[in-house]
């Protein structure tokens, strides 16, 4: 028997009402994050990936579904109990300056979550702040204010705030997307070092597949509110099963493999009126009538590698498609 996953998201739905109608931002998403592992979620604008992140934090609460974190369903918790559970679940956003009050000094910004959770006395908190600043490589910057920091340094402060309370899981929503490539690499390496040193898990959300694969054990691909493929990062890259994953891989520019040969046409439909059946079918080169009539269920085609597609890109020789019965046993 293996340990229960750190985070289990089950059939999560998040809808909002707008003047244009109901936005189906997240429509029945399920996945696990195991302790010490990183699950990467790749999705483009409008895929619902940021809504998914906020909905896990219950800010705002999802329309329905379960978010079981360390054995407790966050959706069922209120007030002080939710606050206590969330202490172990922190988030790092894209714009570091947006989450840092420009008037505060770095050391006060990092101390703030410790005060909010009434952790230790003043001396103990100060020691923890020094420790955490050392950890993110900002030991000399405690007296600075956010306006005196570069984007990369500000993101390190945001990371220091997130790790101050020794969380079990950090949700990163496009946390390195706005940084220049050299700074981005430094911050990615920092995330990896903290994972190893502190035994952290991450839910790492970004639009860049190569970036997500770099830090993730498992990769999930999200399109228009639903997951279309989940599997070990290496398998998703070497042997994508969903046509959308293939299209994403083909769109990645690369100096070593000349330019992308094919790109998918058109743009994602509106999440207010998502297509019937498979949501990718309107742009899919393999779509048939069945894709409009029937929503494809997520099924496991190779070890730990699942796809929601009626006509998956069949794995090349060497891997066999598992039978339906076997799937039940593995979950």
């Amino acid at each position, binding site marked *: 028997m293996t340990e229960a996953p750190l985070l289990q998201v089950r059939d999560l739905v998040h809808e909002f009402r707008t003047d244009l109608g109901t936005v189906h931002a997240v429509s029945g998403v399920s996945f696990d994050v195991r302790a010490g592992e990183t699950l990467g979620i790749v999705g*483009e*604008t409008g895929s619902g990936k940021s809504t998914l992140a906020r909905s896990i934090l219950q800010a705002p609460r999802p329309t329905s579904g379960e978010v079981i974190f360390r054995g407790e369903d966050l959706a069922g918790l209120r007030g002080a109990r939710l606050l206590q559970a969330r202490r172990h679940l922190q988030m790092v956003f894209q714009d570091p300056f947006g989450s840092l009050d420009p008037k505060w000094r770095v050391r006060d910004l990092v101390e703030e979550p410790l005060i909010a959770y009434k952790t230790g006395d003043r001396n103990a908190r100060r020691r923890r702040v020094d420790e955490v600043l050392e950890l993110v490589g900002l030991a000399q910057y405690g007296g600075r204010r956010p306006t005196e920091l*570069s984007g990369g340094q500000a993101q390190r402060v945001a990371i220091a705030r997130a790790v101050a309370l020794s969380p079990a899981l950090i949700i990163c929503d496009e946390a390195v997307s706005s940084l*220049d*490539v*050299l*700074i*981005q*690499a*430094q911050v*990615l*390496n920092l995330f*990896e070092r903290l994972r190893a040193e502190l035994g952290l898990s991450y839910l790492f959300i970004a*639009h*860049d*597949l*190569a*970036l997500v*694969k*770099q*830090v*993730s*054990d498992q990769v999930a691909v999200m399109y228009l509110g639903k997951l279309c493929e989940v599997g070990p*990062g*290496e398998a998703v*890259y070497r042997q994508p099963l969903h046509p959308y994953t293939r*299209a*994403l*891989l*083909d*769109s*990645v*520019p*690369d*100096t*070593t*493999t*000349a*330019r*992308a040969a094919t*790109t*998918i*046409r*058109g*743009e994602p439909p509106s999440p207010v009126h998502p297509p019937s059946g498979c949501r990718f079918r309107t742009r899919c080169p393999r779509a048939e009538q069945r894709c409009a009539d029937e929503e494809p269920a997520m099924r496991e085609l190779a070890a730990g590698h699942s796809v929601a597609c009626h006509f998956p890109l069949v794995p090349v020789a060497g891997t066999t498609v598992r039978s339906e019965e076997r799937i039940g046993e593995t979950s």
Partner: protein
Amino acid sequence: MTEALLDIEDLRVTFTAHGRGRGREVRAVDGVTYSVYAGQTLAIVGESGSGKTVSCRALMGLLPPGAEVTGSARFQGTELIGLTDDQLREHRGANVAMVFQDPARSLNPTMRVGAQIAEAVRAHRDVSKAQARQRAIDLLRLVRMPLPERRSAEYPHQLSGGMRQRVMIAIALACRPRLLIADEATTALDVTTQAQIMELMLELQAELGMALMFISHDLGLAGAYADEVIVMYAGRIVEQAPAAELAGHIRMPYTQALFEAIPRLERPAHAPLPVIGGRPPDPAMLPQGCSFEPRCRRAADDCRAAAPPLAEHEPGHRWACWHPVDGGQS
């Protein structure tokens, strides 16, 4: 070699610093020389503050007041540096047009997109309103906008980011420029939309016989779509080569560092990215020697003593380094 469309020689842009180091000269572009040929796709790659955008804005006369521009930029023989605002306006659009990163900010939110394109047509050509409107629809068709008649009557907020960027390209092409400059034009877009817009620009370039210059922070994008790549650091060109040559033979350690730091699909997960420490130098306090020296693994005493000149060390391949990668002393 055919005659260049644009010849830039020792272009320099300086500002006067405010705040810390006030009164000091900020050298945003510090002596840049290159040529752009008809039909060529040239990428200028660099990090924030490398001078890549400022150098291109200087060609368009789009710098803030207080910027001092020296050197030469000849477009088909005409010197652009020192032109009056009126002369520059004539040059913009007709010869060179630019597309920016954020189409939402460049478009007027209260005006239908067709009317905005028609306005650009009428700014340079003496045509009736009806003709301009028709031309706007033709331009939308040219940039592969789905349902061009219907889209021309819509407002920017009704369009997706990719469609808005198509509108910006339509406006840029209104007067059939000889050179299109795309400044991080696909940076804010999703990867699949980015691929579509890059493909579109290359197709249009071939159809219209334009030169295309794109400014990007992304060396991967540059290598994949450009013929020629220029890498800038701290206001200077540090390496230039045909994209195919650069992919296999990076010589400048800075380009190497940029290349290695890009997350790649082929890399195994969790493998640490090779990184360099530090940050680019303050353009108000550029060092006497090589500006990359403080961050460079190959740095030696000569690097601190004098800045290496940018020279063509191999046919078509220029770099500015005393101790290039896979080579001895040069």
